[in-house]
């Protein structure tokens, strides 16, 4: 399985360089600008990292790797697991990159951790929805569905941000407001200065959300394995 992940990383090498460059630029803008924009920039690199396993599947399709790979000492289950693991590794790398930039620029780390943790959860949810679809239909046919799945939360976030901006009275912190909208669980923070207690409550909600997304990812993995087991090459 390690060999498969190495293969994917080699395949994704160009994207990874781009990913690091974009990650750094966006994080810098986010931290320097010190507004809610920062969070959505981090979001972008994390979502980018969730996309890469799908790109890896499309590389495999193009090279017809699976037909060859399955003759090697790697089971079908491991072949699928490698893609999920790749997603987790890349998301973790994206999160670390965000933290590094955040630290470097002395951003508010509590806020940072909250946002990154939640976005990691969103990444896991993305992968959970996308990978079974991609295994079932192939990357070519799944493209439109993928686009919809990716755009939908962005539109929601944007709508949320817009709503937040409109309800802002001078001096209100927007990030907490955004977080509230994004996590859904604590959506009802409206224009009030967030207290420390509230943040920890928020953090707990986010942790639960991310934990749940990991569970969903495991279920998704089992579904993908059962789809992949039936495939012929």
């Amino acid at each position: 399985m390690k060999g498969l992940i190495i293969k994917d990383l080699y395949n994704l090498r160009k994207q990874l360089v781009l990913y690091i460059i974009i990650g750094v630029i966006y994080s810098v803008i986010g931290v320097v600008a010190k507004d809610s924009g920062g969070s959505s920039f981090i979001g972008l690199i994390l979502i980018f990292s969730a996309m890469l396993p799908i790109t890896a599947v499309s590389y495999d399709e193009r090279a017809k790797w699976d037909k060859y790979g399955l003759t090697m000492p790697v089971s079908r289950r491991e072949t699928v697991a490698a893609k999920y693991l790749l997603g987790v590794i890349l998301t973790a790398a994206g999160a670390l990159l965000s933290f590094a930039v955040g630290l470097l620029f002395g951003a508010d780390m509590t806020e940072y951790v909250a946002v990154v943790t939640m976005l990691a959860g969103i990444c896991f949810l993305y992968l959970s929805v996308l990978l079974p679809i991609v295994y079932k239909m192939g990357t070519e046919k799944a493209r439109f569905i993928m686009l919809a799945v990716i755009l939908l939360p962005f539109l929601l976030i944007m709508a949320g941000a817009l709503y937040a901006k409109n309800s802002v009275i001078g001096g209100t912190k927007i990030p907490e407001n955004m977080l509230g909208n994004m996590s859904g669980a604590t959506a009802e923070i409206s224009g009030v200065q967030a207290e420390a207690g509230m943040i920890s409550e928020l953090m707990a909600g986010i942790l639960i959300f991310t934990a749940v997304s990991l569970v969903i990812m495991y279920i998704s993995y089992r579904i993908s394995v059962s789809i992949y087991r039936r495939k012929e090459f």
Partner: protein
Amino acid sequence: MVDFAIDLKNVTKKYDGFMLNNVSFTLPRGCIMGLIGANGAGKSTIIKLMLGIIKKDSGDIKLLGCDSDKLSNEVKERIGVVFDESFFPENMKLREIERVLANIYKNWDETVFARYISEFGLPQNVAIKDFSRGMKMKLSIACALSHNAELLVLDEATSGLDPIVRNEILDIFLDFIQDENNSVLISSHITSDLEKVCDYVTFIDNGKIIMSDEKDLILEKYAVVKCSQDEIDKLPCEKTIGIRKNKFGAEALTETKAVPADFIAEPADLEKIMLFTAKKENRK
């Protein structure tokens, strides 16, 4: 009991417009078997079924004694496979491919791989997409031979190569089965290659096994008779595999024993047998 490297019993696989029908054959360990058939005869389907890449409808396939539907990683360690194309990611270089394979195969042997790479003259710093077809095939063969496999399965692996390289590679296979534990299955339509190295030959046409036996027995059993168009009808019908007529006369593939004394017969080669058996199917 003979220990079989490959053992197929009544294997059936149905596609739209093609059916692999009740295929059975065995390959004893220590031997090379040639799988001969025209394009589309079912050679690749058999190989994919054996390796569990596609699933059979019915029948029984054993590879190194294990059910091919659930080949464990330990068994797959002992199998080397070469397909008619290389399926390596196009952007990778040799070194990178080796790194991937060394992390997949427990028994990956760097020294052996390095030896084949230099023997085949493959460049280190060129992406696979810039390899010629021959170079890609050589790379696949080098990979299949570099993890201590006991069974090599080659699907049209020599078809893109020039005669000199083909000969080199056939010699490597002959070398490989010097170890009596090792076996090779090689599918091809280049019958001369198979004639050179195979111990066993299996003819397949239109999804059915026409014959499967020791090469020498097959070659002894059949003869090509040349005569006039009138005379050809005197050949015993049930012993005649196929007949070809042209304006100069006629040719028939028939069992050597059944050739009447006054007929001119010459030993059949694998190519003749392939031509006549395939033709027989087409006539129906």
